[in-house]
């Protein structure tokens, strides 16, 4: 393709502005929709990963279960070597900290609510200090023992303020009922944390409430520089642990579906994400009883934990692809039909061009160039227009406690298209345009000059 072809194509595009606008508009609209869909799905992906990290406490989680005297697995373990193994992985590991967690009933007056309570070592914590925005109280308010960091959603529901005392009913690691009191030390803005309503207390306090020894933990959270390395780190930790003789499995355990969990877990709530880790003993339905003291570990990543949400986003992505494909087909049909008309309109012109020395290849190339300019330019325009539209849609507030709460950033959709996605859209649209113009262009190239001139005359 030479410059002359491009010049001729550009002139032809400008020659019939109405047709160019109609065709280009359709292509631009397809590109706009695809840019919006891919940008928002990408943003949701990023939001989910950040929120899942918040819900789970780290990018990689090592959970341990020890068989009790009766052979039932209890979510607790003591081995310090496991943390050392996690630290030894090195690459990208920022912090390795113990976690304890329990599904609890928090009671205030005559009201009660089911919450996940997580024990955090405030002295070592970086994740929550960096990610959570306190709406009431400050981090110093959480320094005394038996203080709780509560979500604004829960606090508002109870009419709680910093300094109020709540009663917490939970199940110990072995499955016994326990009741303790906590003072609300601070309240965090849950709308800025993907609608998370987990309550946080000191790790030591929760370990005591769960009737665990001070050196016991339920999980080890590994916090990485970024989430992309989580799978690699998890695989490395699993293989190192297996090599040292530990019984390790990968991924998220199938949910026990205990009634309370099943009732409260919606597919995109933070509860659903934290459900696999429970303080209480889970009976082994039909399973063989383990020898007392047998410890089994499970290494999971935020990608595993975000599995359900990830698959939902995958569905959205596929719907987007289907819409894009449909739009492309419609546009391609439009382009193809238009260029058939163009061929009829320009038969005389093509004949003239052939008479003055244009070859078949030149006619063909000028048609293809016209298609590329029209579709490529429109795709570019669509993608550019999509950017402010996406940013404006990102300003619309959504309910962070709704089904898609985990896919929001501070209650808003994140629009984050990548250069790769934009390039892919551009390439796709252009290829489809070339394919649509191909047959009319070939027919145009096959026009016999003398016949063309005679026919029109």
């Amino acid at each position: 393709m030479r410059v002359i072809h491009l010049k001729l194509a550009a002139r032809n595009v400008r020659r019939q502005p109405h047709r160019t606008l109609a065709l280009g508009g359709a292509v631009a609209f397809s590109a706009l929709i695809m840019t919006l869909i891919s940008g928002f799905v990408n943003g949701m992906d990023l939001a989910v990963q950040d929120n899942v990290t918040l819900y789970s406490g780290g990018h990689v989680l090592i959970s341990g279960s020890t068989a009790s005297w009766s052979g039932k697995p209890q979510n607790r373990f003591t081995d310090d070597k496991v943390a050392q193994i996690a630290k030894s992985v090195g690459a990208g590991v920022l912090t390795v900290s113990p976690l304890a967690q329990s599904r609890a009933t928090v009671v205030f007056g005559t009201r009660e609510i089911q919450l996940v309570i997580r024990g955090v070592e405030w002295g070592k914590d970086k994740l929550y200090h960096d990610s959570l925005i306190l709406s009431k109280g400050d981090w110093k308010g959480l320094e005394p023992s038996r203080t709780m960091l509560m979500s604004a959603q829960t606090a508002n529901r109870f009419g709680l303020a910093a300094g109020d005392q709540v009663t917490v009913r939970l199940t110990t690691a072995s499955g016994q009922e326990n009741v303790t009191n906590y003072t609300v030390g601070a309240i965090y803005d849950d709308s800025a944390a993907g609608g998370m309503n987990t309550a946080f207390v000191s790790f030591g306090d929760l370990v005591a409430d769960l009737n665990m020894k001070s050196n016991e933990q339920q999980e080890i959270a590994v916090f990485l520089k970024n989430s992309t390395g989580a799978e690699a780190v998890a695989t490395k930790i699993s293989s190192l642990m297996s090599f040292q003789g530990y019984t390790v499995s990968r991924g998220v355990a199938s949910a026990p579906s205990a009634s309370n969990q099943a009732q409260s877990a919606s597919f995109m709530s933070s509860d659903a994400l934290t459900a696999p880790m429970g303080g209480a003993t889970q009976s082994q339905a039909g399973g063989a009883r383990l020898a007392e003291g047998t410890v089994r570990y499970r290494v999971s990543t935020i990608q595993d934990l975000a599995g359900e949400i990830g698959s939902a986003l995958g569905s959205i992505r596929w719907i987007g692809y289907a819409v894009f494909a449909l739009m492309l087909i419609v546009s391609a049909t439009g382009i193809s039909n238009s260029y058939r008309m163009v061929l009829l309109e320009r038969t005389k012109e093509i004949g003239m061009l052939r008479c003055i020395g244009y070859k078949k290849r030149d006619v063909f190339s000028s048609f293809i160039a016209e298609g590329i300019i029209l579709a490529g330019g429109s795709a570019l325009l669509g993608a550019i227009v999509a950017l402010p539209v996406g940013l404006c849609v990102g300003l619309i507030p959504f309910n962070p406690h709704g089904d898609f709460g985990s896919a929001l950033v501070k209650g808003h959709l994140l629009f984050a298209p990548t250069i790769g996605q934009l390039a892919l859209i551009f390439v796709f649209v252009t290829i489809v345009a070339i394919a649509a113009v191909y047959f009319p262009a070939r027919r145009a190239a096959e026009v016999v000059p003398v016949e063309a001139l005679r026919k029109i005359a």
Partner: protein
Amino acid sequence: MNGARAVTTKFVHAKLTGKLSLVLFGLVLVFSARAQSAPAGGGHGGGGGPMGGIGLPLNFLQADKDYKFPDDIAKYSANDFLMLVRRTDIRSSFYNSDMSATISMVSVSPVRGTFANKQQIYRRDKDDAFLMIMVEPESRKGQGMLRVDNNMWRYDPTSRKFTHTTLKDTYENSTVTNNDFRRWQRSIDYSVVSITTGTLGNYKVIIGELKANNDEVPFPYIKMYIEADRKIVLKVEEYSLSMKLLRTAYYTQYVQIGDSLIPTVQIFQDGLIPEKRSQVTYTDISTKSLPDYYFTKEYLERVSQ
């Protein structure tokens, strides 16, 4: 000649094979019957033998029969009280027969208000098994719960799915737990710490403080109020590990059926939110023998349709 011999040999072979099949079939029948009549002991303690059952310590029922209680409640020792608890366990259960009844439940909650439902329960205490099917309200009709072989499931006819549940889970967000529908076995799960005497309304009672025998019993401490004359439990307080009152159960009415004394009216009051309480009433109690297939997931699935 050879042909005749071959036919004879074939005939003898066929006859022997037929007889062998019959013998094998008979053996299978005998073992099946044995397996059904004497289930293997579960949990710790074994069981089995005459009058035995799943999860019961050896001689659990026999020792109770021969036990002589002191005439004066002031003379009760810790062991006497434990045997009294065992007596209440045994008499509130049906180890010689099956049991079926209609359960009406009314729950009051300051947040959720009042709600009522009705269930049909089928119990086989010697196997520690029960099947419960929701009858009312209409919107929840067919929902069920099955406990068999130390496993427990909930069944939802809408989704047609079984979900695993445990004895300590609450029933229908009330103050009733799944464990309350099962046979009593406090004398197995607890040891006596101390006993005193007192009165509860017009009744003279022995008050025993009990501690769980292991760390897997949901309520680590309980306090039982037992009327010594009739040997029935009137009130049970359940405490948390931190000794906070979690729930109080009142057994206000009993009905005698054969050797059993069944608490037909049971009231459960929450310890943390006293305004939250439930009343469970048993009616239409029957001890008619139940078919084995009642205690299967297939039956629950079928009957829930």
